[in-house]
């Protein structure tokens, strides 16, 4: 249990509280049976209890003296790795925005190109080859073989 668990606990606590607040506007019960508000409210109460337990355990373990040879600090994050993940997520969001404009296949190609070149730092040949081959493969399977209608772009696919 680490500091991250305390932060996660706070976020989850906020989330469960918001669920209780929203669910309080639902009908809690009918004459003999629970209504639509019953489950979300009780689940959130259980969630809040578990969250409090998790935060409690995290705080207790934080107070314990750590042995010198503790090894890797679980809270230590790798900034370069985080940057790569953030870039990949930005790329995924960009892909989602691009789809209505250029079509699913081309948007995927651009995203994969961004991922392989910008995030994973592959060579141009490997990046273009992997992106193009992946798009061709999924287009072949889903559009041509499974007949899935996908948003198409100005080039007609």
């Amino acid at each position, binding site marked *: 249990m680490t500091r991250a668990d305390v932060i996660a606990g706070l976020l989850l606590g906020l989330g469960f509280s918001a669920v209780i607040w929203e669910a309080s506007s639902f009908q809690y019960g009918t004459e003999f049976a629970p209504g639509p508000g019953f489950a979300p409210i009780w689940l959130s109460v259980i969630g809040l209890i578990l969250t409090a337990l998790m935060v409690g355990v995290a705080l207790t373990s934080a107070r314990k003296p750590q042995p010198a040879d503790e090894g890797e600090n*679980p809270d230590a994050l790798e900034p370069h790795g985080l940057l790569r993940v953030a870039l990949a997520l930005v790329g995924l969001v960009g892909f989602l925005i691009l789809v209505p404009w250029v079509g699913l296949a081309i948007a995927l190609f651009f995203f994969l190109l961004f991922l392989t070149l910008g995030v994973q730092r592959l060579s141009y040949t490997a990046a273009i080859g992997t992106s193009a081959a992946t798009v061709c493969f999924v287009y072949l399977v889903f559009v041509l073989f499974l007949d899935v209608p996908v948003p198409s772009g100005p080039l007609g696919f």
Partner: protein
Amino acid sequence: MDLFNDLFLGFSIAFTPTNLMFAFAGVFLGTLIGALPGIGPSAGVAVLLPVTFGMPPVTAMIMLAGIYYGAMYGGTITSVLINTPGESASVMTTLDGYQMALKGRAGAALGMAAIGSFIAGTVGVVLLMIAAPPLAEFAITFGPPEYFALMLLGLTTLASLTGGSMIKGLLMAVVGLTLGTIGIDLMIGAPRFTFDNVNLLDGLDFLPVAVGLFAVGELLFNIYRPIRSKPIKAKLSGLLPTRQDWRDSSGAITRGTAIGFFVGMLPGAGATISSFLAYATEKRVSKRPEKFGTGVIEGVAAPESANNAASTGALIPLMALGIPGSGTTAVMLGALTLYGMQPGPLLMSTHPDVFWGLVASMYIGNVMLLILNLPLAPMFASILRVPYSILIPIIIGIALFGVYSVENSLFNVGVTIVFGGIGFVMRLYGYPPAPLVLALVLGPMLERAMRQSLQMSLGELDIFVTRPISATILAFALAAVLFPFFVWLRRLRRERRGDA
């Protein structure tokens, strides 16, 4: 006699060219997926599920099951050759498998794993065929309270046994159940947490969530911390075991099969725990326990037999009760509902073709797996030479296109991306995704069973404890939560005694 008639029906379905082809595709892809470190069977089944749309349900289930048990073998390859388990059920195989490879016996380790998996898988199918129909017949008498208790048992055991912190496991199950309340309330038709978004009226689809958490989250983690493993240059000859290998492994395979099947059958337990138990048992009964971890063949045979038998055993609660016991079977249950079938004890009587076709295909699939893996082990090993940086974009591409194709919905792609990000954070801080996905799948069913039960009892909660079957199952569910707590308490007391 009925059993043979049913099995005959199954083989007549499984032996059609289409079903044979998809059984082969399933075990082949499963082996590949298992061989890729970081992509487990849950992610594999979730990512490839959209490919099965448009297929008859029996064909789709044959392929998905093939991926599931194929992945159990595939995980061995990386365990033996690069000391990295392809999926969690192969963790124990690394202990002796890799040591065998270092001693130049990688071929023997892979060969015995294939044979052990074949024997365990086949025995598992026989037991599945014998156990599932009577269980389903018995479960027909179950009412909503018993179903509620069963689903609760599945969730609590999975959350408790998922490894790491039990609180986190339970918390993820509660998050999944809460997410399961999104959408129109099925009993009175009121919208919940939809925020006027039409995409949420039917609730949060399990597939985008499963693909996001299992696949995209895992891939993002591999982008964060790239896998840098070099396969050892092992000679993959001598795949067939020697007489001594047989002598050393036969008991391990038998015990591993029995442990794997029975543990796999328990909701929430599964392949990983069964492989741990099989290895521990083997070490305990061995005449040379001190040699375990140095490259003994029974250290490979036991966990590999157990994880294959467990993947078959896990199909019993799924097919007989409609209750998945693991992340992968939760995805398979979701698949059944997507194909328009109602999972549960009636499935076998309403769709005997699906159950018996699946059973028969598993006999065939296990033979395919053996044939495929003995001579082709070097080929599967060669996939480890493909850099992971090339595999990541390929898998993400398939995942995104696949999620879109299910409902032709960009909203679902967005959900996948959001849950991919969440899955990455969960992976980073040790929050298990399987209880969340299982709870999301079970959530609406669990809530319906609970509300129906309370309707039956006019609001009295004692309906869950006055019915013997429901009370017994709930007692097990409570034990699943309390047992790890007592273990923790005992350890704490021992530590304090040690300090004093």
